[in-house]
């Protein structure tokens, strides 16, 4: 523990001390006790498992950040449980008090864990390999090697020079080495390798903090917004340009780069070959023209799913598309009350789309329409229209119409995709005498009671864009990559200590014994032992021809076969 807190796995300072420490410590003592508890391995383990469990409800209940409308709906549908769940923040799991508490504690624990380990590791890197244990034979991998007397004489070997040579060999193999007791009759080498394991572990844990900080930076200073653009229209990156906008907590609008985007055309391809997947989308391509700012050069670009366009530090993503029928509404006085493409919302893969048209400027009464847009309209036996294909082979509008007060003038935020018909009077509907409105391209329908008319002029497509700016993104990528590298080093590098001790027999043989010890899991330790033995044996025991016979005689104690070495591995 003096050298390295994670000395033996599983007994961090915390768990060991907590066994002895009893209450009545006073305030500071209690604080210290709590700190050691918090930074113990067991606490980290529990916090990790808590975090896993705490993340689950977020996948079971709708979440506000992703789907605010669904949450509102859920609470309405479950008036009893909804508010209770809401009180427990189950619709905001990942920003909830309890979820935050768990991960903050985990990261505090992490810092409390990493800092002392980093210090210990720093010391370990600078210190010499640990002292040689008295009995190497107790180590999990142990072996001996004898250099026969005649070879000792021939090479002029002494225990000390043998130790020096072994150290040099080990150094070549990547060990840090230290020769001690040179000149005595039992000199030894202490060697260590794989400090990168602990370093990797520290890099990994530290990088996790980096990832968290990057995420926080993105949440503070980033923003994202949504915008629907119909073919031919443009968008300028200002707050009022967005359909919806989610600023980070420290956002200010001078962070919006003044770029603009125009949608020139939008191409869609559907699968036409396969019966099983007929009509499945194959390709969406938006041809756009961007401008970095007013007066900057226009740049034509291609925007696709999975291939965002970057303008300055802001990314633009293609997240949706649909049809925008061009509709003209005339009022009872014959004036144009509304005109232009109306965005419809696809409700299935065949682009059966919901459409709402509002004409608040119509006089004497405001007009509203609700219905479907069908790209390829067909009528089934029961007289219900439906779409058979996502491409516009037979585009058709099916509408109900209303007149009255659309309720747009009282200043409450309106949803353009919903028509509140409560205060309206129905004009056309499939269920009343006038029937629903059915329009093909180029057709006009005159509303009953002389209320006006509606014309289906043509068809355009639109794209739904997500526009994001996240200044923490690069940091998150860098730190998570570092974490991955650190993790790999930590898991797959073996950290080993190795000692070689030499000595001379009265009969002139030189004995070498070596032992290896792994820090943490290391199934390759025995293999390393074998390799090191081979390294040493190659140095002094390489076959040299005839003189071998009496050598074998002399080295009577050693096992036959490999000659003069013996090697054991303990299973543990």
């Amino acid at each position: 523990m003096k050298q390295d807190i994670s000395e033996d796995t599983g007994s961090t300072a915390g768990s060991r001390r907590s066994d002895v420490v009893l209450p009545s410590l006073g305030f500071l003592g209690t604080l210290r006790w709590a700190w050691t508890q918090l930074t113990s391995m067991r606490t980290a383990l529990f916090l990790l498992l808590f975090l896993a469990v705490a993340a689950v409800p977020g996948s079971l209940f709708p979440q506000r950040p992703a789907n605010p409308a669904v949450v509102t709906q859920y609470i309405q549908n479950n008036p009893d449980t909804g508010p209770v769940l809401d009180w427990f923040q189950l619709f905001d799991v990942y920003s909830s008090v309890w979820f935050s508490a768990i991960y903050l504690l985990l990261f505090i624990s992490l810092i409390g864990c990493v800092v002392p380990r980093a210090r210990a590791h720093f010391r370990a890197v600078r210190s010499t390999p640990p002292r040689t244990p008295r009995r190497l034979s107790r180590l999990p991998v142990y072996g001996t090697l004898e250099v026969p007397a005649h070879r000792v004489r021939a090479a002029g070997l002494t225990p000390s020079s043998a130790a020096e040579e072994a150290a040099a060999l080990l150094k070549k193999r990547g060990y840090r080495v230290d020769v001690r007791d040179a000149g005595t009759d039992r000199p030894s080498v202490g060697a260590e390798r794989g400090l990168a394991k602990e370093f990797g572990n520290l890099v990994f844990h530290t990088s996790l903090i980096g990832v968290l900080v990057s995420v926080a930076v993105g949440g503070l200073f980033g923003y994202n917004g949504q915008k629907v653009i119909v073919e031919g229209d443009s968008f300028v990156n200002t707050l009022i340009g967005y359909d919806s906008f989610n600023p980070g907590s420290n956002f200010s609008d001078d962070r919006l780069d003044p770029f603009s985007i125009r949608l020139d055309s939008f191409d869609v391809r559907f699968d036409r070959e396969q019966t099983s997947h007929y009509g499945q989308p194959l390709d969406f391509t938006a041809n756009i023209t961007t401008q970095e700012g007013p007066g900057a050069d226009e740049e034509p670009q291609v925007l696709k799913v999975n291939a965002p366009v970057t303008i300055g530090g802001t990314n633009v993503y293609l997240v949706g598309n649909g049809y925008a029928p061009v509709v003209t509404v005339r009022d009872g006085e014959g004036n144009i009350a509304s005109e232009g493409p109306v965005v419809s919302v696809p409700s299935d893969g065949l682009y059966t789309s919901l459409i709402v048209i509002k004409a608040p400027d119509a006089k004497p009464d405001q007009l509203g329409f609700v219905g479907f847009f069908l790209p390829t309209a067909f009528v089934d036996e029961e007289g219900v229209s439906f779409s058979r294909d996502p491409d516009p082979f037979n585009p058709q509008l099916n509408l109900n119409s209303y007149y009255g007060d659309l309720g747009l003038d009282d200043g409450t935020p309106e949803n353009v995709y919903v028509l509140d018909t409560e205060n309206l009077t129905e004009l056309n509907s499939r269920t009343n005498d006038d029937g629903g409105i059915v329009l093909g391209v180029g057709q006009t329908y005159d509303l009953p009671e002389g209320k006006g008319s509606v014309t289906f002029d043509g068809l355009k497509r639109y794209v739904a864009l997500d526009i994001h700016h996240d200044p923490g993104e690069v940091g998150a990528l860098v730190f998570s990559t570092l974490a991955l590298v650190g993790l790999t080093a930590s898991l797959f590098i073996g950290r080993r200590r190795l000692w070689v001790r030499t000595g001379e027999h009265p009969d002139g043989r030189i004995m070498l014994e070596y032992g290896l010890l792994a820090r943490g899991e290391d199934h390759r330790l025995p293999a390393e032992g074998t390799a090191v033995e081979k390294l040493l044996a190659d140095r002094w025991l390489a076959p040299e021809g005839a003189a071998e016979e009496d050598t074998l005689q002399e080295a009577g104690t050693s096992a036959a076969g490999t000659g003069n070495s013996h090697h054991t591995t303990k299973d543990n």
Partner: protein
Amino acid sequence: MPQPVNAELGQISELLMLLASIAYVVALIFFVLDLVRSSTTIGTIESRLASQQGAPERALAGVGARGGAVAAGSTPPARATADDSMDYGAGPRRGTARIAVSLTILAAVIHGAAVVSRGVAANRVPWGNMYEFCTTGAFLVAAIFLITLTRKDLRFVGSFVVGLVVIMLCAATVGFPTPVARLIPALQSYWLIVHVSIAVASSALFTITFAMSVLQLLQTSREAKLLAGKVDTAKFLRLVPSALSLENLSYRLNAIAFVGWTFTLMAGAIWAEQAWGRYWGWDTKEVWTFVIWTVYAGYLHARATRGWTGTRAAWLSIVGYLCIVFNFTIVNIYFSGLHSYSGV
């Protein structure tokens, strides 16, 4: 621009898949037979040894001793029991097991051909919907198992692993049959290749460690029973190495799989950034990937925490795998989210 698909080759692929399933089932039968037969053989050898030495307890005690560390140099008491090093050569020849392995190889070859022809038919990597995740995943499970077999004698998990492969293939063909098709735009990204292949490979590894962790728990309780001098009720476990060696090997595999899963998570985040504009948004699939990652991180911590190695770590490994299965089945099918391309 995506190329047209080859429906005919797709049908051939489905036929090959069926053939492979049949071969796996036969292999499974042989693996089970091997377990049954080998444990009887071992039983006979043991009782013969016992009568020769006149000390019936010895054989039993020997088996029990495997629970603890086998001291250096000590010879295994009954050589017929599985060797803790999981190297080949210990124990009697297991002809049935050899047949089982050969059949598995045959099945895997056909299976590989089926997966490849599926990819060729669709003109892309064969992991674009549930059917393909399952079939390619099952192939990786079998392949990884066979590769491990060349280095370690893991035939004792054969019936579990091949059983799981059969289940995965059944799930694919019965649960999520999907004819070959091109990819929808959301999946047209090279991140599909990177992200999903590593995810499937890691899951395949987790599948094998799951089987080993289950065996480890069974073996632990058997070892405790034997030490207490009770009757051995799960004789087939004689073919299985000690709980400790199982734990160590599954730790090694889990470590590799965990790195893979970490990469999966990161690649998924990068892809999400490209596709949806944010690298992390707690989408249901992301939540579960995170949960799985955290559970296995917990597992790795447990292995370094006193009192949490052994049985508890094995349970964490099992829970982690159950989360993977949950993520793959329930989440893909019943939970709505951005990742709704399961093709079902």
